[in-house]
């Protein structure tokens, strides 16, 4: 008898972690007990599974997204495996929707008990094949973004791409996207998630790959989730990191703590409300030299006062 024929499905293929799925597929293909690995997409997974005569279904990511599809594939398969990567953040939904799988692997050890004996801890890993997969990074992991910012800072300022004819992606009930749409038409996924969840620092660049944030909106008022452990500390970090990255910041706050660290008007712009912020952003986008000068001033002050440089 031949080895396993696996259909591998990335449950969230639009994230920058899709390269991990490719690395897993690469590793499975090298395994002596695996005959075939097919990386499928939501649209063709069922048809592929049947047409190719596959016998094993491996879902990577989470069980919540497209749960009916995952359930059908799991029932079709002789062996169905779920490898969750969103525990503990989506643990409750993963536990709930993982019933249809024969075995569950979770990336988070503290979440194993929640599956009541159906799950095994399996951390994520690395791949020697990563260099040839690295083109799959659509935007750099967070620790690298400041470096990317700095590299781009020296380049001529480019306006973010704007496609007036493209349909706006308007998440239901998200009125706060109006500000972003007025400038860029389509908010990025990152912006959408950040705003929806009340993140303090919000990049409103069109996309990291087309334009590193030349202008960032910083909400210093308390909009963080009630469950945040240390919102002030984290907001300050975002403030410093954006400044260090060379991002020009517009801050919206009635009582900004930021005055302790930066000078309004010279290193950032201070606004009392969204409307004023929108006008300020529009004004600064029309004046790239002024914007970059303030960004550079903020970065220089950050370097002088609050940063630690790691040599390479």
């Amino acid at each position, binding site marked *: 008898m031949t080895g396993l024929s696996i259909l591998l499905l990335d449950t969230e293929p639009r994230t920058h972690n899709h390269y991990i799925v490719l690395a897993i597929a690469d590793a499975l293909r090298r*395994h002596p007990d695996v005959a075939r690995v097919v990386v499928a997409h939501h649209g063709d997974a069922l048809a592929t599974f049947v047409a190719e005569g596959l016998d094993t279904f491996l879902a990577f990511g989470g069980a919540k997204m497209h749960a009916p599809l995952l359930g059908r594939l799991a029932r079709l398969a002789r062996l169905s495996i779920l490898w969750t990567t969103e525990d503990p953040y989506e643990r409750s939904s993963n536990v709930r929707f993982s019933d249809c799988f024969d075995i569950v692997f979770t990336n988070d050890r*503290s979440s194993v008990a929640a599956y009541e004996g159906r799950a*095994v801890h399996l*951390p994520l890993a*690395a791949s020697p094949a990563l260099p040839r997969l690295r083109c799959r*990074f659509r935007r750099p992991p967070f620790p*690298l973004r400041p470096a990317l910012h700095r590299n781009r800072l020296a380049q001529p300022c480019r306006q973010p791409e704007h496609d007036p004819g493209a349909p706006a992606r308007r998440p239901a009930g998200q009125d706060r996207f109006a500000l972003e749409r007025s400038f860029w038409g389509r908010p990025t996924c990152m912006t959408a998630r950040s705003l929806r969840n009340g993140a303090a620092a919000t990049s409103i660049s069109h996309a990291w790959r087309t334009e590193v944030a030349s202008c960032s909106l910083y909400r210093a008022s308390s909009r963080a*989730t009630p*469950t945040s452990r240390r919102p002030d500390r984290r907001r300050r970090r975002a403030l410093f990191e954006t400044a260090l990255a060379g991002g020009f910041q517009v801050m919206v706050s009635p009582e900004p703590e930021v005055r302790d660290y930066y000078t309004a008007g010279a290193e950032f712009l201070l606004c009392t409300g969204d409307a004023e912020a929108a006008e300020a952003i529009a004004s600064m986008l029309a004046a790239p030299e002024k914007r970059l000068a303030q960004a550079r001033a903020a970065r220089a002050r950050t370097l002088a006062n609050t940063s630690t440089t790691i040599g390479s």
Partner: protein
Amino acid sequence: MADHAAAAWLTLNIGRELDIANRRFALPQATPGPRTFEVALSGSTQLFFTTGLEICDVFEPEREILLIDGPRDIARAIERAQDEPAAILAIAERAQRRALRDHTYACRAQRMLDLCGFRPDITAVDFRDLFAGDHVTPQVSVRV
């Protein structure tokens, strides 16, 4: 990222502490994320911001990774990199070897299939038998 890490003496790994995407949950993840393993495989010494002790299960502190708890630790590590570059490179080398030995997706695939009890000539598998014992430490080293 691999290129950046490979070119760096030290890589600051802030783990999940500043995870923007998951900040709203205010939930610390126990297990180190994939970047930890990728940086090790790239051959860089990591300064790992310690939020839990599970990192000790995957890399040996001081020998394969440097644990930090704040800016002072970072400063000390930088000073050490300047004073003892060979020691820093040795840590990176040991971490890379460990990653190649224990933390590749080939290792994970092996582990996964082992736990699934896959046998080419067996069609019925009783998965209740798969959960006995310690499933944390990889038992099989796989050629990569």
